[in-house]
């Protein structure tokens, strides 16, 4: 940007300016003078993107074993025999093959197979995997402490998450990673509590949601700022008065001031307090966000016309004005729902998995375009996996399943954790039901710990982000919880924050 544009932008920002707004404008301009949208070498920016598949995705129909070696890796046959009418294909060749996924073992559980493929509609995900930009974690789920045998589960020798198999509990626990509590803050919120101070400007929350209120982004001191996927400065905040009313500007200012005053009053009723706090924060954010969005550059990566892709495209746009927003750390939250497929499973997956795959691929490509692919890590969560056996035309609620982690800093092209055996006999130390429900091998804590270490949470602060982590992992140099992140460009943070460990 040259000096003339700089001044023009200043002028633009000065319209209806407030103190906060002016500081934002100058900040954006200062940071953005030479490196407007592209990542400057060494720019300290990191974003985490959480994609929630609400409803409980049947992730054993997303990532499948493909081996057909009798007395060897015979994964596909075992898959077919268990899933019967829910099998995505009758031949393993129909799945999209993953190159040498190196599925090994985790906490004493060995990976049951060596050959894997993804759902035929997930070409984008296959490409990302084979290009080393995406990995899976297998048999991951909500745990308070490791549960090594079905006996430990059946006889409650180990702590069991509250309300397993219940949507409302499990979807919450995937976001809090505190399965023994129904009052916990979210993982993203707790990370933001620690790292929010790194951001030069807190006028807009570092936690931005495309899915409204959610538990994941709720911290002690940070709550989410919700936006729509229509990222357009004219679509933020209050609508203008009709032009024929005259004195539009004055009226608008009066109205805004009045709303500010109404929500800024002191209320003794807690519901009124809660409402006015949200309203006040929102009112303060609208102008800042609107001004920042005026600087969104043209992004050429094509995004499909789906709700998930639109949400992810909106995130790309917001990240493109990270400097105008004065932020070095952001956490995004997206929900793509409709996975509770008790019925119509195969058709449902056929229509939804391509949406996932295409949107994720486009999003990754757009971060490459912005030059921040190594600064952005995306991962998927869901309520639970689903029963391996059929209920006629669908599957029911289960527990451990498979998820994805994507980004330039991911050790891609691998299946971490341990993919369980498609076997319901007593020989399978993961299975706890005639329907095919697996005890998770990897805990959500371990996934989040790996992400948090990469994101800049210091090892000693991990106990604030993940109160149960000590049951699974303790930090030592070069010993990572799961291994899916590449720490070459992200040294472990030594900056500790004065927040006490949380206990529930």
């Amino acid at each position, binding site marked *: 940007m040259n000096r003339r544009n700089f001044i023009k932008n200043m002028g633009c920002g000065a319209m209806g300016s407030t103190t906060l707004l002016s500081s934002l404008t100058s900040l954006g301009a200062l940071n953005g003078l030479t490196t407007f949208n592209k990542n400057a070498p060494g720019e300290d920016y990191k974003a985490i993107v959480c994609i929630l598949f609400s409803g409980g995705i049947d992730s054993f129909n997303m990532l499948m074993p493909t081996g057909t070696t009798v007395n060897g890796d015979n994964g596909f046959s075992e898959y077919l025999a268990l899933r019967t009418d829910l099998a995505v294909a009758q031949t393993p060749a129909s799945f999209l093959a993953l190159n040498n996924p190196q599925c090994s073992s985790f906490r004493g559980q060995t990976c049951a197979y060596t050959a894997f493929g993804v759902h035929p509609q997930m070409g984008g995900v296959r490409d990302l995997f084979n290009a080393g930009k995406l990995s899976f974690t297998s048999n991951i789920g909500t745990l308070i402490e490791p549960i090594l045998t079905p006996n430990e589960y059946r006889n409650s020798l180990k702590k069991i998450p509250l309300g397993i198999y219940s949507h409302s509990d499990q979807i919450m626990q995937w976001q809090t990673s505190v399965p023994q509590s129904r009052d916990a803050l979210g993982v993203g919120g707790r990370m933001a509590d620690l790292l929010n101070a790194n951001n030069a400007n807190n006028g807009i929350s570092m936690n931005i949601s495309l899915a409204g209120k959610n538990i994941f982004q709720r911290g002690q001191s940070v709550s*989410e700022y919700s936006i729509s996927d229509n990222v357009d400065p004219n679509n933020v905040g209050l609508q203008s008065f009709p032009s024929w009313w005259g004195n539009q500007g004055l009226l608008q200012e009066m109205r805004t001031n009045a709303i500010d005053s*109404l929500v800024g009053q002191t209320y003794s009723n807690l*519901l009124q307090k809660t409402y006015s706090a949200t309203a006040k924060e929102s009112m303060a954010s609208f102008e800042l966000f609107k001004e920042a969005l005026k600087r969104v550059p043209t992004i050429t990566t094509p995004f499909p016309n789906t709700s998930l892709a639109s949400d992810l495209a909106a995130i790309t746009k917001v990240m493109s004005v990270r400097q105008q927003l004065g932020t070095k750390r952001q956490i995004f939250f997206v929900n793509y729902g409709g996975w509770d497929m008790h019925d119509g499973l195969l058709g449902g997956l056929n229509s939804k998995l391509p949406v996932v795959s295409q949107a994720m691929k486009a999003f990754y490509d757009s971060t490459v375009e912005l030059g921040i692919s190594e600064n952005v890590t995306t991962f998927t969560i869901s309520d639970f996996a689903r029963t391996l056996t059929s209920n006629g035309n669908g599957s029911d609620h289960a527990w451990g399943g498979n998820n994805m982690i994507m980004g330039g800093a991911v050790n891609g092209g691998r299946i971490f954790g341990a993919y369980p055996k498609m076997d319901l006999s007593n020989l399978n130390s993961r299975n706890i039901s005639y329907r095919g429900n697996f005890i998770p091998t990897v805990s959500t804590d371990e996934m989040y710990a790996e992400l948090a270490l990469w994101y800049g949470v210091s090892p000693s602060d991990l106990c604030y982000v993940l109160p149960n982590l000590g049951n699974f992992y303790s930090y030592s140099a070069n010993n990572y919880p799961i291994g899916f992140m590449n720490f070459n460009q992200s040294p472990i943070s030594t900056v500790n924050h004065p927040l006490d460990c949380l206990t529930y």
Partner: protein
Amino acid sequence: MKNNLLLATLLLCFQTSIAQSTKVFGKGNIKGVTVNASSNASNGIKTLMSTGYMPNPKASSRFLSQATLGPKLSEIQGIQNQGIESWLDSQFAMNPSFNLQNYVQNMHQSMVDSLYLKNPTGNYTLSNVFIDDWAFDVAWFQANMVSSDRLRWRVSLALSEIFVTSRISAFDNNPYALASYYDMLNKNAFGNYRSLIDSVTYHPAMAVYLTYLNNHATDTLGTKRVFPDENYAREIMQLFSIGLFEINNNGTEKKDINGKSIPTYDNDDIGNLAKVFTGLSWSHSRYLGDNNNVNDWSYTKRLKFFPVDSSEKYTRWWANPTTWRIVNGHEPGSKTFLNQTIPARPLADGELDIRDALDIIFNHPNVGPFIAKRLIQHLVSSNPSPEFIDRVAAIFNNNGAGARGDLRAVVRAILLDPEARDCCAEKENTAYGHLREPFLRYMNLINGMGLTNQSGIYRNVMVDLYDRIEQKPLYSPSVFNFYQPGYVPGGPLQAAGKVGPEFQMLNSLSFSNYMNALHKWIISNDPVEYWSIFSGEFYKSDQEPRFDITADYILAKDNRIKEFLDKYNLILAQGRIKSENMSIIQNVLLSMPITFDVNGVPDPTLADRRLRMGIFLIMIAPDYLINK
């Protein structure tokens, strides 16, 4: 002792003694209050509340804000003379006055007739002319514009958010399914809970939504590995009746010796109950699994039970009958859940399993406090005291005449409870009241502004409304409703250990969307969305009315603007907007230009703008948004 304290508090906040000579009572008028039990502490409250108590305007408005979808000025005035109890009696005495399904079908028929008139050779029938789901919304809105059984519609809206089915499903464009289900809720709103869960269970809209339609017995013969669908078994217990954990009659959770919550059921209970809900299909089905000839009306007829799966007789009719695979449709054998066992019985009698299972659920001690709490949260307050829940649950358990599950008695108990009626409950409980849910705000406005037209026919598709506020009847994103009853928003409520269910819908985006929706409804005066029901239909502008506030223009004068704001504070906000906020709003209005004609009458255009700005700001004030 507790009752004594409560009574004392009650008396204090009425600022009066029980002496009959006192004229002011709860800031209202009294007509013939009879106090005959004040010496009996346990009944004293009830006596005070129930006999002869005439509410003042604010109390009337407040009651109506809980008992209807939004007070009208005429109703506020009416109830001041009629009294709350008598109003309730008259409401309970009314039968459901409006049949949504009939209205949808009449609309549908008029589409067919109109198309026929335009093109007599077109062979138009109800079956080949498409009618979209918004016909249900038109019917729903029409019903609420013309029906006088206002309490029923308030309760049925609450029920629709507890026994959730939604058009975000396989019947997304079928207004008959929605109308039939809602009619069923209306019919059962003041009936018995046991009948309600029977009707819900046998309604195709629920069976499709929670996927137990054509649900099949366990089948593991040969290579088959098919088990009953667990969806409904889980949600009927978690969401419609008993919840996840054992609770006391006052709604608090029971604890085991280690202080842990006690789950009401485990996955084995679910697996067994799933076996109960097998064998149900469409009323017209020839066999279990038959999805042929399903049409809009299939969703309006009670499900049919099939003990045996004889599908191959129909799907392989050409084959030798000895090769047909005839298997169980309904699961045979006994089923144990919630520590009770439904006995094994002949398969042909399998439908009795469903009856028995619903009986077991119905008689679980959790149901009373569970349903009491949910209804209280919808009608009155997000955080009722355990005592409030206990009193209402007791009525659920026994309506006084020995009947369990009497919803009429439950609704009455909720609305007449001291904690609902007492003017000062909020002083003791800083989390009293609830955030008005977005759709209620809209209906508050429609009722409060007295929207009306000449013909008495309204066509409001509420499509743009849903896009803006993300809520209207039977449009929940999941069976967990638009918001969950246990939702805890961050901040002061969380710190106090209180819930704020409706806050799950509040965020920076929904906040600005709401303000912009208000802008459209009030400032742009466009509260109703009219769509043609067939192409080339003559536009009936009368069916798309606007808010008429011309009668209030005279109040736009500087010296009367307070009167105007007081009026709408009363109607829309039950007079709860505090004086500081009223001043803020008043100052905005006073700073807007106004001119007068020679007779001192305000300029209509300028008056209109002042008043609309006032209503807009009232509906943004936190003391409007929280109804307490």
